[in-house]
């Protein structure tokens, strides 16, 4: 299935050619979870603070559906 992934705020560095907020089309097997997607992208899970799927918070064990828009953020917590 196809997924639309966006990475933000420094997570770009883990994916060659990725740019901030720019969508990346990936092909993954049906039934894959958020955590498995993160692993397959080569991003350490500890660096992912929050995951939004179609604009809603998703847990790491959530199962993804075809066409899902997945956004990954580190903690942007400085002030």
């Amino acid at each position, binding site marked *: 299935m196809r997924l639309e992934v*966006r990475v*933000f*705020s*420094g997570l770009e560095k883990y994916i060659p050619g990725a*740019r*901030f*907020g720019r969508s990346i089309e990936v092909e993954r097997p049906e039934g894959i979870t958020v955590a498995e997607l993160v692993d397959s992208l080569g991003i350490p899970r*500890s*660096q992912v*603070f*929050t995951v*939004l799927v179609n*604009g*809603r*918070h998703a847990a790491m064990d959530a199962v993804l559906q075809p066409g899902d828009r997945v*956004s990954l*953020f*580190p*903690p*942007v*917590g*400085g*002030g």
Partner: protein
Amino acid sequence: MKELTWEQQKRYQRNILLPGVGIEGQKKLLRGGVLVVGAGGLGSPVAYYLAAAGVGRLGLVDADVVDLSNLQRQILHRTGDIGRPKVESARDKLVALNPDVQVEVFPERLSAASAVSLIERYDIVVDCTDNFATRFLLNETCLRLGKPFIYGGVLAFAGQVMTVMPGAGPCLRCIFPHEPDPHVPGCAELGVLGAVPGVIGTIQATEAIKYLLGLGDLLVGRLLTYDALSMTFYEVSIDRDSGCPACS
């Protein structure tokens, strides 16, 4: 409220000229009260722009003293302020900028015990803190009191901002339900470009002023993200999470 003096009409002339502001809008700002939590990288532009705009009452909360390593981004403070409480250093600059503004300082860490009594005295809260524990406390207290709250955060070359309006749209914990792993590096390890909190804080100040004036559309349900390297803004639409630990 009494009429604007001749000096006030002149000071705020560029505000008053704006459509939807006028003398009445300026009076709203002068009657307004904003609590700024954190007097550092975000709090500096927030407090400066709110004071310059003539927001009548500014509360500043920060327990820290000025450190040499702050001055690369925390433009409220100067070299001669090193070692002084940040809220006092900040008050000097803000009162010098605009004597109309009443600056109330709280040289303390926001705690569960103090949050309610502090926040209920203001119209809106601007989050200029550097940690999620304090943000969650602000989020939950503002939800309880029905006060709007403007989240801002920065890291390295990136920043993000969102306005939480209780009863309308998601809260902070709809997006970030848990505190980050303490081992994940922050600005102290990764650095932060000084102008990045300048950009994000300026947006937070703009949101607070719009709220006081009742103008325009706020960043409710819209996480606005910013990347200085590619010079890109990207807006992520956020829905309320029905499993949110704070607002559901």
